[in-house]
């Protein structure tokens, strides 16, 4: 396992990209040593703004900077940005269509130490319901870094969802990455596991073990929850006839919801959702064992695969 934290992969890329694009400015609400946006701050102090503990103000300031032609990356904890600043994001970023990039760190259960107050398990649902918003979930440290220039150079609001720690690596440096286009991570014919973020690596592990049991599972990574790649999903449903979704987020309104919306209109097939089951989670000792305890274990994905196969 590559043990680089996802936050570090993102933050290093952001600092490097700062040298390429002088219009990039970075904001952080007093979490720059956590999100590691401090790496950018040290290289470009004149383009870094620590706004203090006020996420709503940070988003408004970012809107103003975007109005002035800057490309602001607003960092912070996903739970706080997506909830405290939701109105700012809806009205001032999305409705006014300002070129603000929200880099939402510590997503999902990342903040295992602090517990449910700092878990972000509803942010995908909230963000993808907003018109004009693009929602991207990074799968590992390498991919988190690869998103930085793509997000910066896209003209419009983006919510980039990041984990704090290392995840099982899936993305090779330099491999193709395009907003809105899902990635076939593993071919397969019996069912398709559609995963996002930290669950891509775990789903790959589940598919490997399923193969040992004679189940040929396809794995598709959906990094862009919105606009979602309906083609790759409908094709997978048509070709494999069963779907499992896997995400470090509530099963309500996140990847599972988005995939269900596509398939119920396009290609209805049996589906099972792996995610946080509409409950507040708890504090843990490390992100991996907490995820395991919260229904996101490799075994949970495998069990969902077996359930969906029975419904095929």
């Amino acid at each position, binding site marked *: 396992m590559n043990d680089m934290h996802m936050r570090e992969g993102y933050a290093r890329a952001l600092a490097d990209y700062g040298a390429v694009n002088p219009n990039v400015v970075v904001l952080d609400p007093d979490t720059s040593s956590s999100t590691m946006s401090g790496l950018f701050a040290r290289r470009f102090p004149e383009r870094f703004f620590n706004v203090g503990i006020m996420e709503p103000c940070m988003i*408004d300031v970012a809107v103003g900077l975007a109005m002035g032609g800057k490309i602001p990356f607003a960092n912070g904890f996903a739970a706080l940005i997506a909830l405290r600043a939701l109105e700012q994001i809806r009205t001032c970023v999305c409705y006014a269509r300002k070129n603000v990039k929200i880099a939402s760190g510590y997503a999902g259960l990342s903040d295992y130490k602090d517990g449910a107050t700092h878990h972000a398990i509803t942010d995908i649902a909230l963000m993808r319901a907003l018109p004009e918003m693009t929602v991207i979930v990074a799968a590992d440290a390498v991919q988190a870094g690869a998103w930085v220039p793509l997000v910066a150079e896209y003209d419009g609001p983006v919510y980039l969802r990041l984990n704090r720690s290392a995840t099982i690596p899936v993305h090779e440096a330099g491999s193709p990455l395009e907003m809105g286009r899902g990635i076939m991570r593993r071919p397969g014919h019996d069912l398709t596991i559609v995963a996002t973020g930290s669950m891509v690596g775990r789903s790959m592990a589940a598919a490997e073990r399923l193969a040992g049991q004679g189940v040929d599972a396809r794995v598709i990574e959906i990094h862009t929850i919105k606009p979602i790649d309906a083609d790759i999903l409908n094709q997978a449903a048509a070709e494999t006839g069963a779907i499992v979704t896997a995400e470090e987020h509530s099963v309500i309104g996140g990847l599972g919801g988005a995939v269900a919306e596509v398939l119920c209109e396009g290609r209805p097939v049996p589906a099972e959702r792996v995610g946080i089951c509409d409950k507040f989670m708890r504090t843990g000792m490390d992100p991996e064992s907490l995820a395991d305890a919260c229904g996101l274990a490799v075994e949970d994905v495998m069990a969902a695969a077996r359930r969906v196969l029975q419904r095929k």
Partner: protein
Amino acid sequence: MAYHPESLILELEERARQIRTDSLDMIFRRNAGHPGGSLSAAEIMAALFFHTLRIDPKRPDWSDRDRFILSKGHASATLYSALARRGFFPIEDLEQWGALTCHLQGHPDCIKTPGVDMTSGVLGHGIAIGAGLALAARLDGKRYRVYTLLGDGECQGGIVWEGAMFAAKYHLANLTAIVDYNDVQLDGPVHEILPIEPFVDKWRAFNWAVLEINGHNVRQILEALEMAGEIHDRPTMIVARTTKGKGVSFMENSAAWHGVPPNEADYLRAIAELKGEN
């Protein structure tokens, strides 16, 4: 400070009267809108749009223009009147306000309407967004200034004070905020619903320069806006004491006219009063 000849004052007072009659025309025709807070803001809007702001109707996206954010977005009628009268779009558009085919939304929309720098309508955003914009101007070495107009009730919201702290931290002297302090909000008097006093002291404590004026005195408005440009180490708050519903006797100081359009009889009476025909 520049001398403002009496002719300029008279001209801006006439512009304010036009903003008032336009606003009431529009609100009556659409049977929707906010009369009270539009009438109270008329002189401030007239001074900004017909004197202070460096804007060009032929180039609404001119990168060096001054920026204006109507933080109290429900006074949209005044902004639409000012922009139309400045030539940003045809005056006839005002008659279509709110129609499905018209660019003029209930609240200002920066994508649909030329000359609207920022969408508003949910209260509280002007200062924080204005601060970001002022910061961008400084980063680029641009000379443009950023202005935002707030309501007094709006200042009950925490985001206003978040923005105030941020603007003070970065000494954003190119940001000027004006509060249309008419002491009336939707449900009643501001000093009863949720007192905001001591208001001037609050802004001083937040490290803003504060100027207190009569918000219906055009000369005082012009001088305050100019003085704000002479302050180089901090943002300026202009506390403009105003009268809600100013100019229409039965609307003055009345919460009942915050967001209620006049019927035909009241509309005709109001216009007659504004035109001095009563």
